[in-house]
């Protein structure tokens, strides 16, 4: 009888563990190369590859979920998914609401892109995505900020003249500028913003955060994270040393 109870208890416990093992990964799916929807309709990109590898290392079963950027933090804290992996820069304001892992993408620059050289980025009209560090920066820089819900719309605003320039992550802008055929150019200087990109977790979820933190550290140590960074962002990207310090290339 006692044995029976013990077995049931053990079974119940393992069942509990097995259930907790599916981790739902929330992302936006609209910010290439970090995350985007590929031709087959699946979530793809740098973060997809990193996320899948992290899950493998942490022995977790992961499932990808798409969510609008505007409601990405409220849905995390209310438990609709377990982590945010959506190109989200680590900032103090966000850190008050959620917790971040160490960065899996080094702190890099944001850049201004405009339709012509010589645009005044400090005094003109600058587009940025709502609730991003870039939007915060523009608001403080003295330029007039126009906010858009998606990254795509910020670029379109520059193309159609609604805004003089757009401020966004440098690596997001590179392929767009390259393929614009000279229509769009980088202007002004690069702006270092944020503390790199990390995964976001509920503050009460320290255990899961620890697992991913460990997995990120191991990917930094064996260089596999660097390979993915170079694959998705090109040779110019900053990489990590084996001990996790950032190397600018």
């Amino acid at each position, binding site marked *: 009888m006692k044995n029976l109870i013990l077995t049931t208890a053990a079974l119940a416990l393992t069942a509990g563990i097995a259930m907790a093992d599916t981790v739902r990964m929330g992302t936006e799916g609209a910010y290439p190369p970090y995350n985007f929807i590929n031709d087959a309709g699946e979530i793809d990109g740098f973060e997809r590859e990193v996320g899948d590898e992290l899950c493998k290392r942490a022995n977790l079963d992961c499932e990808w979920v798409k*969510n609008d950027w505007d*409601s990405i933090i*409220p849905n995390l804290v*209310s438990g609709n998914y377990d982590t945010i992996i959506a190109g989200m820069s680590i900032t103090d304001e966000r850190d008050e609401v959620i917790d971040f892992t160490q960065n899996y993408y080094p702190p890099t620059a944001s850049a201004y892109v405009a339709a012509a050289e010589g645009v005044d980025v400090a005094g003109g009209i600058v587009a940025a995505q709502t609730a991003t560090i870039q939007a915060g920066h523009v608001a403080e820089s003295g330029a007039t900020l126009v906010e858009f819900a998606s990254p795509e719309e910020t670029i379109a605003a520059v193309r159609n003249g609604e805004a003089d320039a757009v401020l966004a992550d440098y690596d997001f802008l590179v*392929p767009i500028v390259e393929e614009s055929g000279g229509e769009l150019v980088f202007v002004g200087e690069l702006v270092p913003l944020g503390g790199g990109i990390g995964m976001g977790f509920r503050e009460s979820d320290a255990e899961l955060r620890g697992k991913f933190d460990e997995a990120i550290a191991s990917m930094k140590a064996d260089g596999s994270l660097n390979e993915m960074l170079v694959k998705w962002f090109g040779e110019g990207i900053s990489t990590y040393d084996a001990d996790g310090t950032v190397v600018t290339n």
Partner: protein
Amino acid sequence: MFSYCADPDTLGTFRWFSCYLTNGVHWSFYLSFLKVLALLAVTAPVALSFGFAGAMAARSHILPLSWLGKAYIAIVRGVPDIAFFLFFVIALDQGFEWLRHKVLCPDWTDPVRQGNDFIVCQAAKLPLGTSPEWVHETYGFFLAVVTFSIVFGAFAANVLFGGMRAVPRAQLETAEAYGMTRRQTFWRILVPQMWVYALPGLSNLWMVLIKATPLLFLLGIEDIVYWARELGGTKTSRFTDYPHGDWRMWYFLGLLIFYLGMTRVSELGLERLMRRLSHGQATSGGELLRKETTA
């Protein structure tokens, strides 16, 4: 989809489009049309029943019930849709989970609210963390139907409330004179006659509902407008086999045609319905029908 789609760069325009328009993302886009239609088909009757219940409550002679009905109409009509969709749905979801948590995990000692976080035991999660993605999507769809129904139900309640008051008093007096009870008067005289007064208002609501579906993406459901924006956006050749510029205008043009088609079909349907409802009514529409048949 087709065998020649392996290398789209080499294809002619027609073949390129035949590949482009049948790739995986586009099937998701086409599927979202069905999603929207399904949502409309389910939401409209549910919202109407919410509205009917609300209107009945509002004109009830039991005072608390009447307050409840009027409060529902006033509060929901007053709150902006987008606020409702951002916060109410999360609250509704948390409400369900909290109830399940109380029932399924009575031994749980940690607080449910920890700072910003809302934490229930794994067994109370809705849907369960282990459920496949389609269960999550169906649940999201269910939440969407409930939220849409509550919002549009409040508007419908107000319209029906007005429709009920517009039925000529003489009709109800006659019913009372025949010795009908309040209940009989309501169901046999008032309800069959009020539709004709309520229909113009209800048809407006229906048209607004058709166009309100982009709010779905706030709930994580990918509707047609989301996909049109996503697919039409500039695509660079690094991330797709089908690079193109900003094609959102063409996608939205497609949506325009869809919406106009929906509007036309709805108009035809509503016109027929109005004709049916006017039959034998003491309104100018009913009078017109009477003349037609006697002429």
